[in-house]
């Protein structure tokens, strides 16, 4: 659905994006992670057709995005700092959205009022920051976009509202295959939501992964043997990390769950545990040195 091909972008002769490529499938939720200044906002602005890339292409449904009405009508971008027209009430803003996006769903707008419970005749500027965020989700979801681009969307939301909105997003993805791109500087904030993760660092995409693949592929194994640890234990395994704690061997290996289990059972260990890794651990082990450089994103 979204295909970003080798885009470059400079501000004042300073490179912000350095040949970023990524692709997002229809109906998936893509988490774009990166520390401050990594270029997340610039990348999302470019994907939304606000900025024009200096080099490279952004395709959505095989069409370039920039100044493409057909695409932009199906896409809503919620930037990190929100903008509403001064003195506009929620209803007035809603009719602006309605006029802009042909997919606007009035029933949904009315239905979502129950969820958010904010008086629609209130001026948006008088609402709190968190409420303004809710309004932006409310309006965006009522526009029924095929693609929703969210830049640091959960700032200023309390955990309850965060959960509610995440549910709404997942619901739309499940029901009508909405595609979401979501940026964050915090992996934990989005790991329960995303099915794909990309890590942006200094204008480069360090890695791009399917979370399910990651989770099912990498395992933490704890082993102990009656006798010495067999020397050929990891010979046919893809070993990412190994640590000996007394007689207990702790290893992180890659491979199919069943295959890994079968393999180790062959050696007849006294203790055998196979555990899932947190995403954070996976990234650190996967990325080796680079992982430390971006550790703060993963906390």
């Amino acid at each position: 659905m979204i295909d970003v091909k080798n885009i470059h972008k400079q501000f004042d002769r300073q490179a912000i994006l350095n040949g970023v490529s990524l692709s997002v499938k229809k109906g998936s939720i893509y988490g774009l992670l990166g520390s401050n200044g990594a270029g997340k906002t610039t990348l999302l602005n470019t994907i939304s057709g606000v900025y024009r890339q200096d080099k490279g292409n952004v395709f959505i449904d095989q069409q370039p995005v920039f100044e493409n009405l057909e695409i932009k009508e199906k896409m809503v971008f919620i930037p990190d700092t929100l903008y509403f027209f001064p003195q506009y009430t929620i209803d007035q803003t809603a009719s602006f959205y309605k006029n802009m996006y042909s997919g606007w769903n009035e029933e949904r707008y009315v239905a979502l009022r129950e969820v958010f419970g904010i008086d629609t005749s209130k001026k948006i500027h008088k609402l709190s920051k968190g409420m303004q965020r809710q309004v932006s989700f409310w309006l965006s979801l009522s526009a029924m976009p095929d693609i929703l681009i969210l830049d640091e969307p959960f700032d200023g939301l309390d955990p309850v509202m965060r959960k509610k909105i995440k549910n709404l997003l997942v619901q739309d993805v499940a029901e009508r295959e909405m595609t979401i791109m979501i940026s964050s500087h915090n992996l934990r904030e989005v790991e329960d939501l995303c099915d794909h993760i990309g890590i942006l660092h200094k204008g480069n995409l360090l890695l791009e992964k399917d979370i399910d693949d990651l989770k099912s592929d990498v395992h933490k194994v704890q082993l102990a043997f009656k006798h010495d640890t067999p020397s050929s234990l990891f010979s046919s395994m893809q070993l990412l990390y190994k640590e000996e704690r007394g007689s207990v061997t702790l290893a992180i290996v890659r491979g199919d769950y069943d295959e890994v289990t079968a393999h180790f059972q062959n050696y007849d260990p006294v203790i055998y545990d196979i555990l899932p890794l947190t995403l954070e651990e996976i990234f650190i082990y996967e990325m080796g040195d680079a992982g430390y450089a971006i550790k703060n994103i993963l906390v």
Partner: protein
Amino acid sequence: MRSRTSLFNREIFVQTFRSAGWISIVYLVALLFALPLRIAMDMTDGNAIDYYKPFITLFNYHSEIQMLFMFGVPILLALVLFRYLNSKQSSVFIHSLPIKRPALLHHFTAAGILFLLAPVFITSVILLIMHAASNAESLFSITDVFQWAGQTLLFSLLTFVLSIFVGMLTGMTAVQGVLTVIMLLFPYGISILVMVNLSYFLNGFANLFYMDRNLEILSPVLTAPVLLDGMLSKLQVLSYIVLIALLYTGSIFLYQKRRIESVSQAISIRGLQPVFIYGVTFCTMLFAGLYYGETQNSTSWIIFGYIAGSMLGYLIATMIVEKTWRVAGKWKGFVVYAASAAALLFLIQLDLTGYEKAVPAEQDIQSVYVLDNYYEFSAPEDQIPYKKKLYSKQNIQSVRALHQQIISNQEGKITAGHDTIFIAYKLKDGEHLVREYNIRSRETFKNELRPIFESDEYKKATNPIAALDSKVVDKIKIFSNGPLNKSVTLADPKDITEFTEIAQRELLNESYEMMTENQPVFSGIEFLTSDNNTHYMDYKTSYKTIEKWLTNKGEIKNARIMPDDLSHAIVFKQEDQDLKEEEDGMIDVKKLNKLVEQGKALRVEDKKQLDAILRVNGSGDSDQSYLVALFYQEQKFPDIGRIDFNYAPGFMKDF
């Protein structure tokens, strides 16, 4: 599903009305105050109605309010409507919407036009109703209303579109406002700057000749006062319309080039940043050059002005673009600029086109003007009747010789000169070649000027009396100088013919010195012609044939002050007297008499000596002269005159 690509987005209009509609309302109130209300005041005032159409155009009612709003409202509208471009949040929001940039521009511009149009339209309708319903006929016509509305809209649309265009270039609303005002004046200003500066380095460049060609037309603000007295020309209207179209097309183009992320940068299109910096540098350079050129009049000061001005301009422009005080590291661009500017100056000095040396070939010249300065050339002929071309081969040769002499003297660049010589050739191919030279003194070119000035053609061209046909003269009046109201009127055709002929002969016989130097004068002569013109000439004391003719007629005693009119005269030197002339020209007679007693002043009573004094009185105009107090019979206070030392008769020199 509704049509997705509707051309008109109602909600954007609603938004523009919420944000900028108030400007339109304020504009309407101002217009209603300035026009219908003001006119209603006149209509209810019984006296005012007596005058038919007190003003030529409707722009005259509260013209200052009208002008302020005509330019101020469109600028303010452009600033408010396009404010969204200059704030990060709003510009990201707007540009993420499914609407193309040109469409955004069209919507906001259309809204602005509507806001400009509506108040003018409503005001016009009210004026038309007033016209139909009352006695306003005597104050304005229906045509006036349409002309007013059309021209108001034309000016405000031009300003509006210009401000939009500038807005596309900049990322700061304040810069947009300031730059718009500058751009409204810029074409005029830069033309003046370039021309004045060229005149410093191109010898003979007649900057005034080019500057006076209605350059105001280049600036809408400076053109606007035309509306008070009449209408814009068709060409102006057309060119404004073309300009509006060009600026708008340019705005669409720039909007698409514009980088949304360049919010809050002074110049939002990076390729234009150097253009802006060097443009500002060039203008401040020329301005400083003009300042020192006009005040100091010396080349070294002008060069200093160029260096200081360009440095200052470069610094300021760089600071604006970089948005920081710390621009010291950016000096390389200035070096490039300075080198280019020096090269340009050098090129001008090289005079590759031969501009400074150009004297047209004799066979190419159809006619020529030689005047004191451009102002004489520019004045309409009915105001300055002596502005006539010279055609004769003799004079064309003489003018070329003068021109060549000026060029070879290398005068006229920047001198402390007070005199100017203006030469304009009309060439046979229809072109003009115009030069104006600053010269130290006309004396320098006396030998070249003499044959021109003394030629009959020049005299007839420059003095209407010399070329006057006596048949058209109805009357000739001679008024004597001095406090006695003596005059002679010639009305007899024979007298008129005779007198005109001898006056003309006197004029044609005058030498260069008599024409250019201060001459003692008896009286003034007026020729009243049948076409109701009056031509004036001095009756110089040296005009012997006139004196003879008047003597024969027995009118001389009425045509000039005679020795018999005086009781006596007292001659003294300027430096002797501690009795400076009082402000009202009165002089302390007692002190004067005391001077005579002390031998510091000469009392003259002899009629012959008095006549000699009258013949030279008025020849002096400097400290190198005697003062003479003429005491008329039965007059309490004397008349004070000056006599140049060189003109002083023998008996005065002895004293």
